């Protein structure tokens, strides 16, 4: 188990190094000089040179890469080209919205998907199964921004239970902040829950047809007991994989939902920075997202091992 852990940890570190190099190089070859962009077309050559110097765009590639990585390790992400504020601060503010939103949506999605998937699988072919499959089919097909607009219409405009958008901030108190994240989280969670429920159902059905379920039934377990004690944990591996992928998506891919609800999240920050050629912000946010994805994958790998003893011994 320790060996498995260390090996995964090593792979995590290597992935991060490779990712940082790729991100850095990709932005190196992108055409467009941020300094020229900031100063506009009428900039004087000497002003431009001075600004390039200030932004640290002049050194060798190697030195700039090391400077960038070294800075990130010490919490210094540099200064935004457009806003002239520390990038770390900008990201920090946004992360306090995007991370809770992703976790909230993922929790909702899991809470919906597990019971629905298990229920459908345990009553295969019944009305319940058909209903769950039908509803999740819709959930997968309908885009989340449409859900979002629908919910704004019903819960914000007609019923006036929630505000239509914006974020009150954590200073307003935990429950109020969570309340303002509720509609976006639900909108994000519904399609994800639909996918997850379908994966849960099919994985569970596969497991229920395994020989060891028959063995369990021959011992005298009821169908229900066989499902809960033997099938469920065996069916979790594909479900964990999907949860891992979904978290990464929710963290970075919420841009449309952030726009619909006027949330100043990470997705919008990346979008704005790309439009403004604020490369340092783009670099940092992308690196942060890569870190999040890799860490989540690491957590999923650890969860695999917790579920399946066969993986623990593997080198």
């Amino acid at each position, binding site marked *: 188990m320790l060996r498995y852990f260390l090996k995964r940890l090593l792979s995590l570190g290597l992935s991060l190094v490779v990712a940082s190099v790729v991100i850095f190089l990709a932005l190196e070859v992108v055409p467009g000089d941020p300094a020229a962009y900031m100063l506009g077309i009428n900039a004087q050559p000497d002003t431009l040179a001075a600004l390039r110097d200030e932004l640290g765009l002049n050194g060798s590639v190697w030195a700039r890469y090391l400077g960038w990585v070294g800075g990130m390790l010490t919490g210094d992400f540099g200064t935004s080209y457009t806003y002239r504020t520390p990038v770390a601060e900008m990201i920090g503010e946004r992360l306090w919205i995007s991370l809770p939103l992703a976790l909230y949506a993922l929790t909702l999605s899991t809470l919906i998907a597990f019971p629905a998937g298990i229920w459908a699988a345990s009553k295969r072919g019944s009305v319940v199964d058909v209903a769950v499959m039908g509803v999740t089919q819709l959930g997968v097909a309908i885009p989340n921004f449409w859900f979002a607009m629908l919910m704004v219409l019903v819960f914000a405009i007609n019923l006036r239970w929630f505000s239509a958008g914006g974020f009150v901030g954590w200073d307003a108190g935990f429950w109020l902040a969570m309340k303002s994240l509720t509609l976006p989280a639900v909108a994000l969670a519904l399609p994800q829950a639909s996918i997850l429920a379908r994966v849960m159902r099919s994985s569970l059905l596969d497991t229920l047809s395994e020989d060891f379920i028959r*063995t369990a039934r021959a011992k005298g377990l*009821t169908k229900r007991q066989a499902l809960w004690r033997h099938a469920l944990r065996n069916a979790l591996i594909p479900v964990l994989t999907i949860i891992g992928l979904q978290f990464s998506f929710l963290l970075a891919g919420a841009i449309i939902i952030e726009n619909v609800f006027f949330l100043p999240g990470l997705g919008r920050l990346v979008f704005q920075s790309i439009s403004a050629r604020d490369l340092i912000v783009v670099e940092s946010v992308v690196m942060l997202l890569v870190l999040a994805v890799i860490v989540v994958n690491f957590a999923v790998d650890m969860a695999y091992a917790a579920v399946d*003893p066969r993986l623990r011994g593997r080198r």
Partner: protein
Amino acid sequence: MSLLVIEGLDLSIHGTPILKGVSLSVSAGQIVGVIGESGSGKSMTAFAAMQLLPYGAECSGRIDLGGREVLTLSEATLCQMRGRDVGMVFQEPMTALNPIKTIGDQVAETILIHERVSRAEAMKRAAEALRRAELPQEKFPLSRYPHELSGGQRQRVVIAMAIALRPKLLIADEPTTALDVTTQAQILTLLKKLVQEEGMGLLLISHDLAVVADMADEIVIMRQGEVVENGPAQWLLRNMQHPYSKALLAASTHQPDRAAEELDDVLLDVCDVVREYTIHRKGIWGGTDTFRAVKGVSFQLRKGESLGLVGESGCGKSTLTRAILGLEDVQGGEIHAFGQPVGRDFPSALRSGIQVVFQDPYSSFNPRWKVTRLVAEPFHLMAQRPDDWRDRVAQVLEDVGIGADAMDRYIHEFSGGQRQRIAIARALILRPEIVILDEAVSALDVSIRAQILDLLAALQQDYGLSYLFISHDLSVVRSITDRVLVMKSGEIVEQGQTDQVFDDPQHEYTKQLIAAAPVLPADVA
């Protein structure tokens, strides 16, 4: 007193009749063997007794289990009965256990489900059950997971689960079919011992007449959902009346009619071959461990000869086959076929002289191709496909007894035996000199197996083929080979004339193998 009485049992699944008027009974301390070929309904009979039937199954008739009418009981009552009054052992030990629970937990579960005892007490009794199944706790701790055990050891865990509550009746559905012969012998001995010492009744389902003849007090022969004949084992084996029973017995002991016509030409020369695998790296920059699957094997195959290669799973026989076919490189020694070294540069004209037939007739064909295309595929080895290729395909299909009208059909339209004939046709289309038969008859029912063995013998006669016949089944190897090689842990431990090796084995391992293989009594066979 009868533990299990089945009377006039009819079973249909979604309206398709599976069992028709099946009757049998099992008493305490008695072993009843149910024998039949695939589709005979023998396993369904067992599942009906447990009422563990597939969706859509309907039963009528009478099943009496320890004085209770099973067909009238509620599912809740059945759950209380399963595992407590009757235990069950299955065919596939590799998949019959939950991979993520320890063996102790899985055995203890039988106890915890039925009795109100503490977990510690259940674990103690699980250890006891495992000891009765000959997996002592000192050598096999309860904390082991199934993947840490061999097939035979897993089957002992399944048995321990089934006998943990000392049920009066044990149902074993092909309990040794997936196991090697020596392991099979151990498991059968264990089952017999449990019956004798604990007075259990045992319903033993098998396709292997020799296994049943060796074990059972009473034999029930089934065919197409019906019992064709039953009676006391030793008497029935010698006084069979029904034509199907007689045919089954004849097929089990079938000896294809063949006369060896060996020439001295060496077609295949395997010299000191070593095949190594890299198992895993020690860390990312560390060295690698190697596993020697084949350790310096040498033999020769002559023209017109039939050479057997026997050994248990993991002995390296399949690895050796792949090396001979040139599918994998060897790490030492040389393989020459028709005088040329086998390897990457082996000329494809010669390559067509070696063909192979594999075990599984179901997965070795592309399901989207018609039979013509399947059989004609080896023509790719030739520089140009001969003009009369369709005639050749028709001819070879006639030769293997399928008939040319099969040419435009798809593979799913054929039974297992027919598919194996088509596989043989595919191997013969280029008129090879060497045919490698890798467990080619192992998946077939005995009557089909007898037919295929006859076919192979006739084809050898007609075309002067040389066979390398790889199998774990000693009786088949004995019936069709002239010489035999016995392989163990990557080495050939004994070789010689087939009759001589079987009648007077020299190596300890050969003796073990032959002793373990179930045989019909001499006066029956």
